[in-house]
């Protein structure tokens, strides 16, 4: 009796496929249960229905409208918050006097969750764009500020001393030693704050908005369009992942010297040991 031979995949391909096995099975199970009516559509629509909703929204252009609005808000809020965080991180990191003046105030403000300010923000700005941009900026500011400050303060004092002995001016020390040395830490702050920007935006758009992905989801709730709601959630996950990849790309670009980001010579296969 000839034994059944499963197809022979090469081991590397196998390794990259195996992690997808469980999600795929769950998806199939979900599809089956939903289409049999075991899970009511009101609670969770079938994956196929969600895909269909996505395609429809894409066709009608509604999706791109909301998407670009949300991305714009996240982008503007991020730029404002991150620039200010970077600016104050640099000022306080480089000037102990400024740190004395400002740092403890920042530490106090840091403990306020930005979302706790929503009622106040709505009173200040209404539900216009400023409200959401403001919330995102506040949320982004602190991670960037803290990591910039920390990055500057944790530079090896030996390197700064070396700069002095080699006759560098204070400005040259900042540009040649302090800033490049703090960059890895600053980028950690950037990456972290991108995640925060999306979280704040989701909540902000669901509570007070008339456009954007969060609004799209809340609007769908009124019409019990669970497919669109689930699709919005997936969209946030994808956008978060996308911005994280962008931050990582930035790390690779800005830190080519860093051992963690150095491209290993994969093109050259390691030679076998001498036989």
């Amino acid at each position, binding site marked *: 009796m000839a034994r059944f031979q499963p197809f022979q995949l090469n081991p590397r391909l196998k390794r990259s496929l195996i992690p997808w096995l469980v999600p795929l099975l769950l998806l199939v199970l979900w599809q089956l249960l939903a289409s049999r009516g075991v899970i009511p559509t009101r609670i969770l629509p079938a994956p196929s229905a969600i895909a269909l909703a996505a395609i429809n929204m894409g066709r009608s252009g509604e999706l791109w409208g909301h998407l670009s609005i949300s991305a714009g808000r996240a982008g503007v809020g991020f730029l404002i918050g991150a620039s200010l965080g970077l600016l104050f991180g640099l000022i306080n990191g480089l000037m102990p006097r400024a740190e004395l003046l400002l740092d403890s105030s920042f530490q106090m403000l840091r403990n306020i969750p930005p979302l706790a300010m929503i009622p106040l923000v709505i009173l200040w700005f209404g539900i216009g764009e400023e409200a959401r941009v403001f919330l995102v900026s506040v949320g982004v500011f602190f991670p960037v500020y803290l990591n910039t400050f920390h990055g500057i303060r944790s530079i090896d004092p030996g390197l700064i001393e070396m700069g002095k*002995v080699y*006759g560098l001016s204070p400005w040259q020390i900042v540009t040649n030693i302090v800033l490049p040395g703090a960059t890895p830490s600053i980028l950690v702050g950037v990456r972290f704050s991108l995640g925060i920007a999306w979280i704040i935006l989701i909540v902000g758009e669901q509570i007070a908005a008339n456009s954007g992905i969060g609004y799209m989801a809340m609007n769908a709730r009124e019409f019990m369009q669970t497919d669109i709601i689930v699709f919005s959630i997936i969209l946030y996950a994808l956008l978060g992942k996308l911005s994280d990849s962008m931050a990582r790309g930035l790390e690779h670009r800005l830190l080519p010297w*860093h051992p963690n980001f150095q491209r290993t010579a994969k093109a050259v296969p390691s030679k076998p040991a001498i036989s």
Partner: protein
Amino acid sequence: MSTTTPGTSLQLVELTKTYAGRPVLSAIDLAVDGGHFVAIVGRSGCGKSTLLRLLSGLEAPCDGGVLVNGEPLRSVNLHARIMFQDGRLLPWKSVLDNVGLGLRGDWRSRGLEVLRHVGLHERAGDWIARLSGGQRQRVALAKALITQPRLMLLDEPLGALDALTRIEMQQLIENLWLEEGFTSILVTHDVEEAVTLADRILVLEEGRIARDFRNDLQRPRRRGDPGFSQLTAEILDTILTQGGQGSAPQKTADHATEAVTPEHGHSPRPTGQPAGARGSERSDSPPIGEPSGALTAQLQ
């Protein structure tokens, strides 16, 4: 020696440094002529690095002062280049950019030239993280050399290197010193290194210069030559019997250094003149020139 400008001369006048009420250097008087190679040895924590930091102007003395070419030193000493033990290279700059740090104008060709001198011109574009420890030290050396310093301060520059690389680097430093004629102050734990390179070896003890050895052995010096081993053994004994543990029998400095052939005779101090007061209390009995750990002359 193709010396254009002579090496910097140094004069330390009652140089004193105290940390939190604890004296680290107490009233050190010392004159170093331009172009000399001086080594400073001593136990860990005796103030060797502190002395170098004072000479480089990174630290201000609590009392007394330093005269550089006769001028009092008030801020960072721009005649001096320090080579630190850990190299202190910037990982975010290429090898060549590290060498030219802070230079203006067209230094790149000169940078490559200096790198060729230390045998690293092919690595000019590499990141520091890709270099071995010895290669990093050579970059640090190139970086110190590019400005043609008149005073080189070396704080255990080779401490982290393996024995072979260390010997290579010592030869490199010696050759560069012979070519360039700068004044060198070398702090080291390795007595053999001091004897290989320096023509004057100071033993620092409790913030004072306890002994001042003159070393006129002919260059290039070879470990294992009788004069070399003798001097090494004697310096080691001086260091090891410090701090009141000197129960082992001793010999005096003059006894040992007599055997060393004076050759250039340009040392500013008479042979083995003790700067501390301890020399006279020592008995001298044991045979000289024993292989007394001369090859394991590493103090910690």
